[in-house]
């Protein structure tokens, strides 16, 4: 973990209430896709934990949904403003554990970290298959970014207004040997039940510190008690207790 002062390079609306923010600064602490940052905001006591979508040596991209006052304040920020950020939090997805054909499954606000993961899988010579779930056509974002990677990309909407109708589990690829998933709890449960291969699932929880100190986000696993922020947010399929 590293405390970094980032400069906002871009902050743009991607879909209703969904924003993409590009932050320029030191990314040396960011080592795996699926890790997150914890952002200090003026006027708010706790930091805001947000997953990293993509990163390079000069900065990182986060995508956030406006769900409360903190994220609403973020959406009003403009390029040039600085943010105090704890970077490189959580374990992230272990690319080495992923299979040659890994289904990369994201639901709604869980889509962003899957983009960085797909890129890292490609760099590792593996074949990611993207499966992105949304409620409706208007909420779809980042489909073109996944397609630009040249990977098989399937979009589902619950109401059928775009892509395949239904949930991500209705459109699981025919053949894959591993999966990684991030999204709302019902989606993770459904994927866990439907997919027969081994997999990694990324969880969300209300956090205090985000770096393992406060025990605010503990969960029970078959391997013992874990902190979603420090020992997670990515857990192995085999250890999960629902």
């Amino acid at each position, binding site marked *: *973990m590293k*405390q970094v002062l980032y400069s906002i390079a871009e902050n743009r609306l991607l879909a209703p209430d969904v924003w993409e923010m590009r932050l320029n600064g030191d990314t040396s602490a960011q080592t795996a896709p699926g890790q997150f940052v914890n952002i*200090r905001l003026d006027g*708010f*006591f*706790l*930091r805001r934990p947000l997953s990293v979508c993509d990163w390079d040596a000069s900065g990182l991209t986060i995508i956030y949904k406006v769900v409360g006052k903190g994220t609403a304040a973020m959406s009003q920020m403009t390029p040039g403003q600085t943010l105090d950020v*704890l970077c490189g939090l959580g374990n992230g997805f272990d690319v080495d554990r992923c299979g040659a054909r890994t289904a990369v499954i994201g639901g709604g606000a869980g889509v962003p970290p899957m983009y960085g993961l797909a890129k890292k899988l490609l760099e590792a010579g593996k074949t990611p298959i993207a499966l992105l779930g949304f409620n409706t056509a208007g909420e779809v974002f980042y489909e073109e970014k996944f397609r630009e990677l040249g990977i098989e990309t399937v979009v589902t909407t619950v109401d059928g207004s775009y892509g395949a109708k239904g949930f991500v589990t209705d459109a699981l690829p025919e053949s894959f040997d591993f999966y990684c998933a991030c999204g709302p709890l019902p989606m993770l449960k459904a994927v866990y039940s439907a997919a027969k291969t081994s997999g990694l699932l990324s969880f969300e*929880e*209300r*956090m*205090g*510190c985000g*770096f*393992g*100190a*406060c*025990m*605010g*986000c*503990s*969960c*029970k696993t078959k391997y013992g*008690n874990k902190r979603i922020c*420090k020992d997670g947010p990515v857990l192995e399929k085999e250890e999960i207790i629902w």
Partner: protein
Amino acid sequence: MVDLRVDLAGITLDNPVIPASGTFGYGYEFAELYDINCLGTFSFKGTTKEPRFGNPTPRIAECSSGMLNAVGLQNPGVEKVISEELPKLKKCFHKPVMANISGFSVEEYAYTCSLLDKVEQVGWLEVNISCPNVHCGGMSFGVSPEAAAGVTKAVKAVTKKPVFMKLSPNVTDIAAIAKACQDAGADGISLINTLLGMRIDLKTKKPLLANGTGGFSGSAIFPVALRMVYQVYEAVDIPVIGMGGVSSAEDVIEMMLAGAAAVEVGAANLVEPFACRNIIGQLPGVMEKLGIQSLKDIIGGAHHG
């Protein structure tokens, strides 16, 4: 050169800054971030006789200038703390540490304290009496002078280490409880624990915390904590550790003027992992600006003349 050293029940601290229990784990998480030997000491995660998972999640909610927590004393139990956590800590922290102890009966407190009494690394016992007493309808030990004195006596009987009783602010007369602890043999008083609070989710119309209520901490509670430290300082002759919403070097000095011999920093560590190191770094400059030569000299300064 200004002098940051203070005495805490016979042990000299390099400075009065102590991360508060529950915000600093067993120390080694923070040792990855900075050399924690810069601290006066720290109070480790509240430890009980048996291992505890704690409350269901969500355990955390935000408030204006503060937060609620209902972690529920998650800890691996005293035996594992002694066999696993403290040896890990020993590698990165070379000063006496403050052991924070909780219990649900007088016997549990005494048992846990008797085991920690034998650990050389432990300099002080800080006994949290905000927990519910299972033998007394779940009423907190900290709300009655008699119950607080009962725990103090039982703990003092099993240890030679200095015992600081950590008081709950959720009482009508905190000075009376502090006095009862002193009369029962306590070597010092720690205060305040969190204030009982609640938030309700406007969307679900249900409490945000799975536990319903939680402990309120953070800068919002500083004036309440300061007032209680001031009152307790007047009521007792033993050292007082002040805490509650401290987040700056100025806050530390204010707490000491109210009567604190040392100062714990809690929620600030969770939003600013370097908070304690920063406060320690800023203390000399703030002291010079205020014309303070030695922190020892200002303890209780607000009460004189």
